[in-house]
């Protein structure tokens, strides 16, 4: 009977119900994307941060390329030049990275290669690039008029997943360029001294930690903005829910008076209205979760160049917050319903 009572009265007011659900959905979508971005991107960024340690990225001082990167300094324990360029594959623009991949793997120990590192006419796509192009190890891939074999798939959990890695020679062949767009440098010791040394040689130097830290600052700002937006959207949602509930209570005061006259206690009355609000909260929460995932994916790709992954705890949190908003919004309307005097209502007309 309880379910019938709740569903039927919701059904009678389905238009208003829909509006409230949409309002909750928007709030929940913001919450979901906020949580996903916060938890997931933070985690991935942390991974990048940790593994880079105190390493440096060296960029060309003048022009676009470093022709011959040579640096001899006691504190430099390794360096890998990279040649980045974009090329079209299957009508999709993909970023390529050429390097001595043996060395690159040593410098980026978190690289996970499913298969082998490429040799000769072979390529190693990052996992996102592979998914985008529908590639797996052993497949053939044509770039320009040449054919390459996929030697394996690279999973880094960073934006490198979007790239296709090839040997430096292949990179120079395909792009027709020579030199490196940047070099990763591994330093053990006095990093500032190394920076001075490299800058004297005419290079631009960036601490990778700084790169990551500016990304982290961006994440913090994005998060703050999203938290603010979430707060306002949730407030608006609870206001909308409040309006729906209070209108419902006012419209149904005769019905409520009747139920009370028939012996419906306050607890049960509150339960009926809470359940109605709960339905809106749950429905809005679930819908909002999926909309929020899309939003998070969009923000992740646009701002952080990262694919976000789905986290089940975000779903639970979103649902919880939606239900909480619904419950808070219905407190006053329920109080109002409880205060209805059956005598006055039943006498009416």
């Amino acid at each position, binding site marked *: *009977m309880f379910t019938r009572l709740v569903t039927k009265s919701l059904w009678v007011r389905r238009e208003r119900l829909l509006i409230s659900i949409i309002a909750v959905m928007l709030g929940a979508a913001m919450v979901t994307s906020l949580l996903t971005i916060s938890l997931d991107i933070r985690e991935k960024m942390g991974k990048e941060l940790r593994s880079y340690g105190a390493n440096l990225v060296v960029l060309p001082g003048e022009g676009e390329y470093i022709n011959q990167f040579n640096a001899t300094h006691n504190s430099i324990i390794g360096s890998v030049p990279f040649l980045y360029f974009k090329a079209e594959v299957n009508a999709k623009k993909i970023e390529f990275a050429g390097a001595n991949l043996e060395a690159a793997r040593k410098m980026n120990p978190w690289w996970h290669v499913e298969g082998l590192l490429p040799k000769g006419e072979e390529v190693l796509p990052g996992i996102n690039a592979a998914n985008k192009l529908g590639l797996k190890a052993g497949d053939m891939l044509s770039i320009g008029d040449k054919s390459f074999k996929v030697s394996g798939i690279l999973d880094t959990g960073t934006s490198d997943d979007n790239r296709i890695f090839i040997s430096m020679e292949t990179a120079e062949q395909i792009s027709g360029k020579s030199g490196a767009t940047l070099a990763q440098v591994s330093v053990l010791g006095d990093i500032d001294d190394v920076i001075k040394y490299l800058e004297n040689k005419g290079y631009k130097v960036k601490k990778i930690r700084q790169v990551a830290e500016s990304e982290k600052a961006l994440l913090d700002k994005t998060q703050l903005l999203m938290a603010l937006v979430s707060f306002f959207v949730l407030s608006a949602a609870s206001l909308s829910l409040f309006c729906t509930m209070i209108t419902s209570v006012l419209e149904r005061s005769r019905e409520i008076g009747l139920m009370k*006259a028939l012996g419906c*206690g306050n607890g049960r009355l509150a339960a009926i209205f809470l359940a109605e609000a709960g339905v809106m909260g749950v429905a809005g929460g679930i819908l909002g979760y999926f909309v929020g995932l899309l939003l998070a994916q969009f923000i992740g790709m646009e701002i952080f160049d990262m694919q976000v992954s789905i986290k089940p705890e975000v779903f639970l949190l979103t649902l919880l917050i939606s239900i909480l908003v619904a419950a808070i919004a219905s407190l006053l309307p329920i109080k109002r319903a409880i205060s209805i005097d059956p005598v006055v209502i039943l006498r009416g007309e």
Partner: protein
Amino acid sequence: MIIAKNLVKKYDTTCALKDASFTIEKGEWANIMGPSGSGKTTLLNLIGCLDSPTSGSLLVNGIETTKLGQKERTRFRRENIGLVFQQFHMIPHLTALENVMIAQYFHSIEDEKEAKEALVHVGMGHRLHHMPSQLSGGEQQRVCIARALINQPQIILADEPTGNLDKKNEEAVLDIFRELHSEGRTIVIVTHNPEIGEIGDKIIQISHGEVKY
């Protein structure tokens, strides 16, 4: 069973009930009669614990109802009293059957079979799944009577239960009350109909809030 002593009910300025005292025995059929606005509904609401008096004492089923809090009154009403309102009130989005079952639900647990039987009993077996808006006034009234009786209350309070019924339906409803009366339930009916007045065991005459009996 029902003992009222010096009951007073005031609404702001109007005094709807002045010093009403009367007794209704267990199993008695009492009719409350009087002109419009004389305080009949007010009195019935007091007995039904829907409202509390400004002063005076009212013993129902041995319980001093004026001393009950709002929650206890709701519970008391649920357990002891079946109400038929002057304006037949139903929940608009529930069917006739569900409108009866809801009283079972508030009382204890719903029993669809019993609710159906109750509706058949008042001649509404063919309208089980109609919505209130699809029922005539007389039909709605009968659903309300079925609802008032469904939990087998000891006391049945009815505010003009036959006011909207034709002769045939009125007889049917009165038969139900007669049956209840013979089962030993206490029945209090507000009526303008002198024919009903004759069936009852006693008449509580009321005018301008004053009870003469």
